[in-house]
């Protein structure tokens, strides 16, 4: 008796599963049919509609997307780009959504993504190297940092769209107050330390103003590692985060904190506000390393701030460089209208018209000649434009996201006595290289 009932149950389960698979199959079929007819129609008729995923909805960034798409749609009567906002899942990244969409067989046609880390999901991307070569788009059109960060081991993964650079911002009023020359900001690490000390104010045993905190804002270990002359990978693309110069940079950062009291410094950083309450705007911090997007924020939140922008100091006071990040426009694998997608990507990234919309956000185009025109009459961008050709980009490796996370944690680990700079960076180097090896073995 019992056997029979369980058999009945099993049969039900099987039939349900069967039903499921039938529904799934028939769905796929009908979808496929529809698509093919759609394609046929669009070829014979006119308009192709493509979906464009981006993660900028509001503010100047949102405006730049909207206006770019509008212009493209006007100038390309046969293609309609439909921008779709996709919420980022962490920082600037929408990679997990892209990967899921590609795996599910329903990707967007074009996506705006952080350039950094795309190597890790390169199998979800349509290789566009040939398309670029066919249309005469080469690395000569772009900055080295743009093209380099968009390629993995010589293979172009996506077209670079823009760039963001970093520099030292300083409060001129505070400089005058502390007896420093506001037109002569520090250029060496030593001068920076002296200025920081003079600018720092303490009342009743409590800091009311900090001159400088190395890792505040955009003072990543990448920024300082490069300023100290270090390199994060060698010629064979092996990670060298324990480069002696990077160790020096980390040591300098943490020694700096020790001088002012680690607890005071860390509690200041952890309680610092953003936007209108940014300590640099409120006068609680006199100098900070930050990106060029801060120019428009200052205009918005602290228009009366008397400030200057200068190079990120280096130990020698020369060879200034900057950490450049930015985005690409990529084409996911399996898109239906590759030609239309490529047309849009090409227009956005490799034409003066498309790139000129970067002016709205105050960020940089990936093409040097466009920037020269865009910011010709904007002196506040001078320092950035000057160091931009010397911009450094994060190494394109298969464990870039992990490397970022690990390096971002490094100062914190050192300050909390989890190891010396050398030990921490040795550990990171070993870990990342091992991870890359594993991922490479998996690809083969």
């Amino acid at each position, binding site marked *: *008796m*019992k056997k*029979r*009932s*369980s058999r*009945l*149950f099993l049969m*039900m*389960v099987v039939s*349900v*599963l069967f039903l*499921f698979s039938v529904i799934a199959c028939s769905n796929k079929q009908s979808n496929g049919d529809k698509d093919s007819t759609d394609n046929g129609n669009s070829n014979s008729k006119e308009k192709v509609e493509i979906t464009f995923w981006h993660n900028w909805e509001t503010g100047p960034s949102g405006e730049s997307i909207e206006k770019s798409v509008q212009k493209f749609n006007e100038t390309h009567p046969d293609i309609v780009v439909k921008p779709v906002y996709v919420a980022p*899942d*962490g*920082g600037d*990244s929408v*990679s*997990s959504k892209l*990967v*899921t969409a*590609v*795996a599910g067989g329903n990707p967007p046609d074009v996506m705006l993504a952080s350039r950094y880390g795309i190597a*890790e*999901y390169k*199998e*979800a991307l349509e290789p566009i190297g040939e398309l670029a070569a066919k249309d005469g788009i080469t690395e000569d059109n772009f900055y080295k940092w743009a093209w380099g960060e968009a390629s993995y081991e010589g293979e172009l993964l996506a077209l670079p769209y823009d760039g963001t650079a970093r520099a030292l911002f300083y409060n001129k009023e505070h400089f005058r107050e502390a007896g420093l020359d506001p037109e002569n900001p520090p250029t060496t690490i030593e001068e920076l330390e002296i200025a920081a000390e003079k600018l720092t104010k303490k009342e009743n045993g409590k800091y009311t103003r900090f001159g400088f905190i190395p890792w505040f804002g955009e003072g990543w270990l990448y920024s300082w590692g490069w300023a100290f002359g270090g390199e994060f990978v060698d010629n064979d693309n092996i990670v060298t985060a324990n480069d002696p110069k990077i160790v020096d940079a980390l040591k300098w950062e943490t020694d700096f904190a020790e001088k002012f009291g680690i*607890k005071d410094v*860390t*509690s*200041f*950083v*952890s*309680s610092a506000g953003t936007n209108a309450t940014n300590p640099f705007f409120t006068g609680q911090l006199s100098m900070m390393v930050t990106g060029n997007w801060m120019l428009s924020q200052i205009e918005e939140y602290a228009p009366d701030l008397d400030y200057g922008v200068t190079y990120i100091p280096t130990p020698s006071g020369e060879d200034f460089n900057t950490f450049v990040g930015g985005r690409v426009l990529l084409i996911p*694998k399996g898109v239906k209208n590759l030609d239309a997608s490529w047309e849009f990507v090409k227009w956005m990234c490799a034409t003066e018209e498309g790139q000129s919309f970067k002016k709205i956000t105050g960020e940089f185009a990936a093409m040097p000649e466009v920037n020269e025109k865009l910011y010709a009459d904007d002196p506040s961008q001078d320092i950035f434009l000057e160091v931009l050709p010397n911009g450094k980009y994060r190494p394109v490796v298969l*464990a870039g*996201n*992990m490397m970022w*996370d690990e390096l*971002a*944690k490094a100062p*914190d*680990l050192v*300050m*909390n006595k*989890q190891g010396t700079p050398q030990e921490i960076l040795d550990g990171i180097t070993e870990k990342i290289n091992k*991870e890359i090896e594993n991922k490479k073995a*998996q*690809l083969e």
Partner: protein
Amino acid sequence: MSNLTEVTNVKAKASKKTTSMETRIRRAGILFALPWIIGLLAFYAYPLFSSMYYSLTNYNVISPSQWIGFENYITLFNDDLFWKGLKNTLAYALMQVPLAIMFGVTLAMLLNLPVFGQGFLRTVFFLPSLLPVIATTILWQWLLNPQFGLVNAFLEKIGITGPGWLGDTTWSKPSLVIMTLWVLGNSILIYLAGLQDISKDYYEAADIDGANWLQKTFHITIPLLTPVIFFNMIMGVIHALQEFTLPYALTYGTGNPAESLLFYSMYLYNNAFLYMKMGYASAMAWILFVVVMLITVVLLKSSGKWVFYQGDD
């Protein structure tokens, strides 16, 4: 099931006319449950078993996965961050669960007192549970702000220099515990229901015997509340071991300061969605499942000694 067999028996006899009312009801019942059965199979059973399979491969969602046996598990046992995440999570659970029970039971007993404005007070204590976790996070980030926060300002007034709270490795986890103790509304609600479930007879008998308030609390209320405490404890342990949103929103996934807020599920998430190591993350999920199971079994075994049900003997 025995009814089901009856159905088959009836069918076997192939007497369609005798298809009883009951059989048709059975059939309708199954039909009505079918959406649920389908849902369960498609959205629970399938992902569950596929994650078990993927934990034995190096799956990254896009490229075809390769069978690597138990390599993920072996690598995990040599992964510092895995252990750190596990330790942080267990340490947090060890602090959070007992405190949550103590706080919850105390508050529930106070809110059960027939005082003026009882309903209002109950609402006030439940309200924080209605806030989205992210809002709670931001709110407490400001309250616990070492420099401008209300908590440290208050401590300073009574002569104590407040700690760095979320910026301090020793205080970061306790800070998190404090935040969660603020949103106990749901478990208080369950405790309240449990308190009202305790038969008045016991209290009347105790009154006649001349027991005081303290004796009644420790000899009647708490013992008879143990089934509810037990339920909340199990749920609390499971929640604490899966804690994700709060530390993730607080630290943007970094686990700062010095990885002291790197929780197990945060590291799992990073592996799955940031480092594209879905197989590795699946293995982590199964280990977490085993840990939760083990702890639950231990608690369940121990419950015989300290959980009392009304009207048992």
